[in-house]
């Protein structure tokens, strides 16, 4: 019997719905191609990600899909793949390594800018804004936040009154939003680094009787966030469709393995979801 092609996947996290969905896409597509998938997870620890990729190399995989935790920090992982002549494709996040074979990317800064533009319009170009950033040191979230702040800086009447980093959990969203709403009762908008944080912040807004007056924006487009947009509790979120990313990653790798020519950087589109287009996005129930 012909031996199955095995590919390796190195995730940045395995407890984040985004990566869980992405892995689902990878698995689905791989199954269609009758490939096998070997996964390792790094949980935001760079040394662990390098170790994981080395383990994949030792395992003898044909190609690797990786969501690098850091653009530089895990270059040794790319070096290890290169040394073994295994193609390595970055998905979702990218690397500066010369050994990165391909990159399936999102434009994080642009997403941040888009959220900010949307928010600025929604609050009429003036008022106080709070930012609940992602974990410090994680480039994706730094880029998102930078894009957002860049745009807001262009509005003289918009003030960022609160910036705090933290883990991507709902609980932290509740707590920081509660505190910032006490400090700034007239807050106009809360930027949340992802949907979990946003759902937490939304709860604090409801509890403080500010619903409709303080808007909350999310990112990722996970189902509960979509429902919250539908209910009008969450102002907007950004759909990234990680399942598609996963599929795309596998397809790109497949083309490369077949020797087809592939662009070194493949961008993925993101869609802003708000009241205007939510109905089209919600799964039919």
């Amino acid at each position: 019997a012909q031996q199955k092609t095995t590919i390796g996947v190195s995730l940045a996290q395995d407890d984040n719905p985004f990566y869980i969905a992405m892995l689902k896409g990878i698995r689905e597509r791989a199954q269609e191609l009758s490939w096998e998938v070997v996964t390792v997870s790094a949980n935001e620890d760079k040394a662990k990600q390098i170790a994981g990729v080395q383990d994949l190399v030792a395992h003898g995989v044909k190609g690797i899909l990786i969501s690098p935790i850091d653009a530089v920090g895990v270059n040794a992982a790319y070096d290890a793949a290169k040394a073994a002549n295994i193609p390595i494709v970055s998905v979702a996040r990218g690397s500066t390594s010369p050994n990165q074979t391909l990159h399936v990317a999102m434009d994080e800064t642009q997403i941040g800018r888009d959220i900010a533009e949307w928010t600025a319009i929604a609050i009429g170009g003036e008022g106080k804004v709070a930012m609940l950033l992602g974990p410090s040191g994680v480039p994706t979230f730094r880029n998102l936040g930078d894009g957002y702040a860049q745009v807001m800086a262009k509005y003289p009447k918009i003030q960022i009154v609160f910036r705090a980093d933290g883990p991507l959990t709902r609980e932290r969203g509740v707590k920081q939003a509660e505190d910032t709403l006490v400090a700034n009762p007239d807050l106009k908008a809360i930027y949340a680094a992802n949907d979990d944080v946003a759902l937490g912040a939304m709860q604090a807004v409801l509890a403080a009787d500010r619903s409709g007056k303080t808007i909350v924006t999310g990112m990722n487009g996970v189902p509960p966030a979509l429902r919250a947009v539908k209910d009008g509790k969450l102002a907007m979120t950004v759909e990234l469709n990680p399942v598609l990313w996963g599929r795309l990653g596998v397809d790109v790798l497949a083309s490369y393995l077949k020797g087809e020519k592939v662009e070194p950087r493949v961008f993925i589109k993101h869609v802003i979801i708000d009241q205007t287009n939510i109905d089209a996005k919600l799964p039919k129930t």
Partner: protein
Amino acid sequence: MRRHSKYTWPWLRRFNLVGQAPLITLIVLCLATALMTDRFISPLNLTNILVQSSIMAVIAIGMTFVIIGGGFDLSVGSTVALAGCIAAMVMVRFGLVAGIIAGIAAGMAVGLANGLIIARLGVNPFITTLGTMVLVRGVVYLITGGAPVGDEGLPPAFIAFGSVRFLGIHYLVWVPALLLVALSWLMQATPYGQRVYATGGNREAAYLSGVAVERIIASTYVWCGGLAGLAGVMLAARLQSGQPTAGEFYELTAIAAVILGGASLHGGEGTLYKSIIGVLIMVVLGNSLNLLNVDSYWQRVAIGAVIIAAAATDRLRSHR
């Protein structure tokens, strides 16, 4: 050396202020913040502080049991997540009460496993509970697939429990308040409580005085697990869903709160209400830094410094 430090501030001891170092730290912290921002003493903020403390307070009570008994529990954070997810899963299918019971029972089961491994097999508590911390987190992800549970809607009564008040105080706050009263009584007035203190103070001497030390030690972990389970259920009510990522770093916060409250990691010392003061110190600290809009990098510096300073003040206490 330790010995003479006991006698360093005799006048302080006379006024018996020294035993109250955590309380004093808390008051100073509150006053300082109140001076810097008038928002601090607003009813909304005080309520926020109480609600934010409530869940950690329940965990800290359980942790105090374990620490008085001479142990250590790193698994509470994972247990919180496990209990919250199980409660949400069961609740959706079998109703509110079943869900709550299932959540607490899951916590007690983790505690029982810890307790048996530590007390019976004599394995080091640090390693054991580090092991269950990782293992239980794995189980949480396995049963939830890593996704939040119950977003499709938990029973409204449960969600209300996470946000509604009784006599002007959130239900979430009543829970640790009542627990504090009941369990302080248990620790101070019953033979069981005395035996826990004795076991933690000197396990061999307690054993020779007829205390079933293994059972006592195991029981402290069951309390800790069960209360972490209850805290998980409360957190699920507050977050309106079971969150598999919930509770990370809770273990360190809880242990820090208990030690700030004057307990000794050598065992045999600790008071429930002081542990709760320890929790309040941690929560008020975070809250005031947020109110003052301190940059989150500087927040870390401040939190680290204040924790150390608070513990150093506590050194003025009678001993250790």
